[in-house]
């Protein structure tokens, strides 16, 4: 086990928990969308930490491919969530 | 000799970066912070890129480093102006 793996991995766990707490507790939709993105970044950090093999050693490419997929799915989910939030605000102010 | 020049450039570059950051932190308002930041940082990055280009001794790398510096130079000049004007309008508006 490498120190760097552990440091970045544990920070990832912390960020996941912080993000999840805000997703569950915050009232504003925009804050929640930001929080889901932060949560995702924590997951990515855990995966990239697992892939790391030390300085000068090529890392494991499989978690990197997973994270890459994750980043793209996260941005499309964010876009859809923002479109939903926008429609919601429009419906509410029409009432 | 090249090594020495390259090292001096990198150290000087970092010096400018730090000067810019201290300015950003210490100066009293947005406009003066802007003035500290953009000039110092771009010069810092330029010196750093030039030092690294000398260090790498590779023409392609040197060209890429030049491209990165030019991109940062043009982008940060424009975006600093836009941010300042935005802030100015907000003040005038409120």
């Amino acid at each position: 086990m490498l120190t760097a793996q552990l440091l970045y991995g544990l920070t990832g766990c912390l960020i996941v928990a912080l993000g999840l707490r805000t997703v569950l507790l915050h009232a504003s939709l925009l804050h929640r969308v930001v929080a889901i993105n932060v949560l995702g970044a924590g997951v990515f950090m855990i995966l990239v930490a697992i892939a790391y093999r030390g300085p000068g050693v090529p890392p494991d490419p499989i978690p990197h491919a997973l994270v890459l997929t994750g980043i793209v799915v996260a941005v499309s989910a964010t876009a859809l969530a923002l479109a939903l939030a926008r429609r919601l605000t429009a419906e509410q102010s029409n009432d | 000799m090249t090594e020495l020049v390259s090292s001096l450039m990198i150290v000087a570059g970092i010096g400018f970066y730090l000067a810019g950051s201290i300015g950003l932190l210490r100066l009293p308002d947005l406009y003066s912070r802007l003035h500290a930041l953009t000039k110092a940082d771009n010069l810092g990055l330029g010196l750093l890129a030039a030092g690294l280009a000398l260090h790498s001794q590779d023409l392609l790398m040197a060209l890429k480093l030049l491209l990165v510096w030019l991109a940062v130079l043009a982008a940060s000049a424009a975006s600093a102006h836009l941010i300042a004007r935005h802030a100015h309008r907000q003040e005038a508006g409120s």
Partner: protein
Amino acid sequence: MSELLSVAVGGLMLSLFLGLLRVLRGPEAGDRMLATQLIGTAGVGLLLLLSVLPEQQALIDVALILALLAAVAAAAFTGQQRERRDD
């Protein structure tokens, strides 16, 4: 050379950290955006320094994208939408 690079990485990290304090402190959105630009430039510098390490030349590309997209974000910060006429 390697000690020099370590010192340079340390110096840039310090610069980034000072920028971070301004991002956290604000007070206006413009101040935070400006400090974000500083973090971007320091990040570009750090990536360039890291790209000297063996097998890491691709980090120059990352630095380029970081620089270009930071400008896009600044533009999005300041863009003004036209007033809607129909409402």
